[in-house]
């Protein structure tokens, strides 16, 4: 999983490493925007600091030539809902006059198991679309992680992409810096799109993407501190899942799903769909969950108003059926009336002990995964019909 830095955070990281960036200031209210714009000098770009793609198209980025326009931009962007995220802050940035827009990026090519550097002269648009429609427009250079990026590789990628000779050295230098950052900061993706080319043949990073491998945050204390700030906003339930430390994804349907192990939980989602229901979520309690964690998982799914019924499917390897049963009892015994019907299927380690402990007055028990899912979907349909 990757932790995504905000644009302003990524720009700080890039600028500290020597990548040219436009001057900018963060602001969280209209007055702050106007002060910042005054100091930077018009024209400025006002950019929503939320982690969703396509901010510009969604109205989250506006250009302002003067104070009136800056006020208008600030008022419309601050507080707006951008694809489910409330905009709390904007970056006020010097508007760069450019003649050309490039793309440079570093990511892990999982198929090759190697990092790959990418350069394209088709910057400023969604690079995934470029990759799909015109793959040859992106020059790729695989990097041996034991050596890092050789200088010739940076040059080669830049020349292969067809970058104009007048800026080739500067672009290669930005790419080298980007790789060094990606490597030293445990990046999963580091990207500048667009890297703008000015009339004076300078290059400047007009946007910045830096995603960090969450598994490596233990050795990136500085970035780990940015994490809380970066994680601000977002779905209330997903925040709650973070507190409980669950792998959780909220979906559109009404059948709540709890299980252990990513592959089996995904399979449970698929079976809900197969039997005509719609999954409300993906929730993986992980391996070896104890009773409290099981109770938290139920609390999590009950908190979702969309959920009409819940399937609890555990195949114990290191997770024990007796712990699961205790957790389910604990979570349900506090209710006078069970808020949503719960179907339980236990298999694997200590499932017999679990079945003895489980209070069957509170739940419906099924022996197989298929039966459990079918029953849960039927319960959800009953609720919908009412």
């Amino acid at each position, binding site marked *: 999983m990757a932790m995504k830095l905000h644009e302003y955070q990524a720009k700080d990281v890039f600028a500290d490493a020597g990548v040219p960036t436009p001057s900018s200031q963060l602001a969280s209210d209209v007055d702050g925007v106007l002060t910042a714009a005054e100091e930077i000098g018009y024209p400025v770009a006002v950019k929503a600091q939320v982690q969703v793609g396509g901010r510009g198209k969604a109205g989250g980025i506006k250009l302002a030539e003067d104070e009136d326009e800056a006020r208008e931009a600030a008022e419309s962007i601050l507080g707006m809902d951008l694809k489910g995220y409330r905009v709390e802050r904007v970056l006020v940035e010097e508007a760069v006059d450019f003649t050309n827009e490039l793309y440079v990026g570093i990511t892990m090519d999982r198929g090759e*198991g190697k990092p790959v550097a990418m350069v394209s002269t088709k910057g400023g648009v969604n690079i995934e679309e470029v990759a799909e429609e015109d793959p040859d427009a992106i020059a790729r250079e695989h990097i041996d992680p034991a050596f890092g990026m050789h200088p010739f590789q940076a040059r080669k990628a830049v020349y292969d992409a067809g970058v104009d000779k007048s800026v080739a050295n500067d672009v290669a230098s930005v790419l080298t810096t980007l790789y060094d950052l990606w490597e030293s900061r*445990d990046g999963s993706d580091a990207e500048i799109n667009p890297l703008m080319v000015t009339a004076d043949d300078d290059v400047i990073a007009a946007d910045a993407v830096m995603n960090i491998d969450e598994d490596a945050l233990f050795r990136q204390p500085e970035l780990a501190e940015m994490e809380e700030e970066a994680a601000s906003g977002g779905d209330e339930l997903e925040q709650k899942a973070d507190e409980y430390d669950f792998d959780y994804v909220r979906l559109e349907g009404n059948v709540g799903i709890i299980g252990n192990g990513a592959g089996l939980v*995904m399979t449970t989602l*698929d079976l809900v*769909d197969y039997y005509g229901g719609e999954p409300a979520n993906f929730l993986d309690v992980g*391996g070896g969950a104890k009773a409290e964690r099981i109770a938290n998982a139920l609390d999590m799914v009950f908190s979702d108003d969309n959920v009409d019924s819940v399937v609890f499917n555990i*195949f114990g*390897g290191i997770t024990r059926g007796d712990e699961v049963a205790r957790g389910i009892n604990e979570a349900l015994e506090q209710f006078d009336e069970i808020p949503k019907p719960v179907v339980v299927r236990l298999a694997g380690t200590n499932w017999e002990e679990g079945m003895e402990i489980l209070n069957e007055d509170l739940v419906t028990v099924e022996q197989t995964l298929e039966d459990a899912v079918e029953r849960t979907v039927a319960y959800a349909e009953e609720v919908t019909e009412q």
Partner: protein
Amino acid sequence: MSVLVDDDTRVVVQGITGGEGKFHAEQMMEYGTNVVAGAVPGKGGQEVNGVPVFDTVHEAVAEEDADTSVIFVPPAFAGDAVFEALDTDLDLAVAITEGIPTQDMAKVNKRLTETDTRLVGPNCPGLITPGEAKLGILPGNIFADGNVGLVSRSGTLTYQVVDSLTNRGIGQTTAIGIGGDPIIGTDFVDALELFENDDETEAIVMCGEIGGEDEEEAAAYIDEHVDTPVAGFIAGRTAPPGKRMGHAGAIVSGSGTGTAESKINALNDAGVPVGDTPEEVADNIESFLE
């Protein structure tokens, strides 16, 4: 017959003095696995369950003839532990650890091209040859000795499918959990090759999931090189793009690569039936064996 592990396998457990390492070393021994040594820096000279602990894997190999390592080392140190295993003459290293930084695995991946030692994992349940030995954390009691080879990216999904097979009286030669990370040692193609060359394996179950292109590569390999019948399963048909489903590797990217549909189509094109449910996978295996 079986692949990779049997009752002659001599195991060193890296991280045997830690909570998980100790517990699962015991469980492996109870199952009959020949655990001959532990390796934990600074703990040389101790014993766990009557097994001698050494400071280095090299010593464990020299003193106890270990040929296989199972790694239960915390993620921050696991990359280094894998390098240590690869620096000896082991046949096999199995990394159970979840959460190894991806860049560490990229370096390991490079090292694997320079050694004969095979890596399974990381972030995997390990592997088991029923009735002989298990390496890792799989619950031994659901497996039975038989003729079906199984390879899977997911632990609990493996258990689900194995349970369906065992309940029908269909046993397994070896089951291999290859792990849910983006960069892994042994992949589907490697495992399929092993099963294809194993005389006792009469049918193969392959459980994939969304993300990456390993299943598509496996389908191409099956088409060209595998005569043993294969039954497939793909988890994550309902996963929306851009959302990671638990495993670091299980994500459909925005540009549409790694979808269940693409994997199912590729497998179908290679003549591999893909079950809609785990029970259907067992049905398909049953019909292969008739």
